[in-house]
């Protein structure tokens, strides 16, 4: 029985070491936060809608701030989309939340609404995607979101009252429900003039083709 006891002890110690090593780091480190530049003021923006209200085609993105594919879109393709279609008055582009990956997604979405109250939605949106490191790692912890707001120069009393008070909790939930009703099951999903773009292959060319089709080009 001593051999058996020894084997069990070794196994349990190894398992405990693995468990200890597996504990994720906290989300309170704010030292690596970077702030995105403000958007080009020549592009008309109203809240979370870019472009002219009477643009012939309305493109809506349903996204999740934790979703890597949304991050890739925001960083690599959206600037091109804005340049090609929003700046030329062909489309308006709106970002809506479909926060599904975890609590960080919901917190980030609510914080972005609070930044929107202060007219800083797009800079906050860009900052969130710029600080995306992984999923459910506390990238969008309360401390980090507030630090982003602070470094962006937002009125912190107003931001904290909005964020801590859960002012947009219902709005984020409603946006998710709206996406559900459209049949969305992943992000980013684009809705072009009310039509969900299905089977998007992740390329700018495919999005461009769908928009061109809606424009009748």
């Amino acid at each position, binding site marked *: *029985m001593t*051999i*058996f006891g020894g*084997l*069990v002890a*070794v*196994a*349990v110690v*190894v*398992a405990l070491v*693995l*468990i200890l*090593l*597996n504990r*994720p*780091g906290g989300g309170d480190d704010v030292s690596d936060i970077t702030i995105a530049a403000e958007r080009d003021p020549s592009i008309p923006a109203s809240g979370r809608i870019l472009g002219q209200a009477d643009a012939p085609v309305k493109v809506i993105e349903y996204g*999740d701030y934790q*979703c*890597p*594919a*949304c991050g890739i879109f925001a960083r690599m393709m959206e600037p091109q989309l804005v340049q090609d279609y929003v700046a030329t008055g062909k489309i308006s582009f709106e970002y809506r939340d479909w926060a*599904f*990956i*975890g609590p960080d997604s919901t917190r980030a979405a609510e914080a972005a609404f609070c930044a929107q109250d202060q007219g800083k939605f797009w800079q906050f949106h860009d900052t969130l995607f710029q600080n995306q490191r*992984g*999923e*459910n*790692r*506390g990238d969008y912890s309360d401390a980090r979101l507030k630090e982003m707001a602070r470094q962006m120069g937002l009125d912190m009393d107003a931001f904290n009252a909005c964020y801590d008070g859960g002012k947009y909790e219902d709005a984020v939930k409603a946006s998710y429900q709206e996406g559900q009703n459209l049949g969305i*099951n*992943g*992000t*980013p*999903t684009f809705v072009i003039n009310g039509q969900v773009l299905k089977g*998007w*292959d*992740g390329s700018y060319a495919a999005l461009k083709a769908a928009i061109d089709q809606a424009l009748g080009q």
Partner: protein
Amino acid sequence: MGRWHTASLVLAVAGLLVAGYLTYTHYDRSALVCTVGNCQTVQTSPYAEIAGIPISILGMGMYLAVIGLGLARGLRPAWFAPATMAAFAVVLAGAVYAAYLTYLELAVIKAICQWCVTSALLTLGILVAEGVLLWRVLDAGEREAF
């Protein structure tokens, strides 16, 4: 080779395939769209890696060790006792860890990944088989001592 020995090997090969699949999907999530899926939630959670190494690779290591030890004791009868002891210790550590991971899925991540659960059940099966083999080894050892 006895029944339990064969069972342990077969389960370990199955486990290796499952862990291999989980490792593949861990690295192949450059997916262009983030979809709703419990496995994705589990696999992208901060618990899915230890120091940058996916847990599924640890799982593959455990299954490979069990297969290696199983083959070794099949080849050389003299290695039967030490190989069985080592295999039991490896798979017990794996089973305790798998139990912890299943607890995380249920209580912390709140999502169940069926492949992870499959791996946990296979580990449990191997633990039973290795437990029986170890019991026989220790039992034989005690009788020899008298």
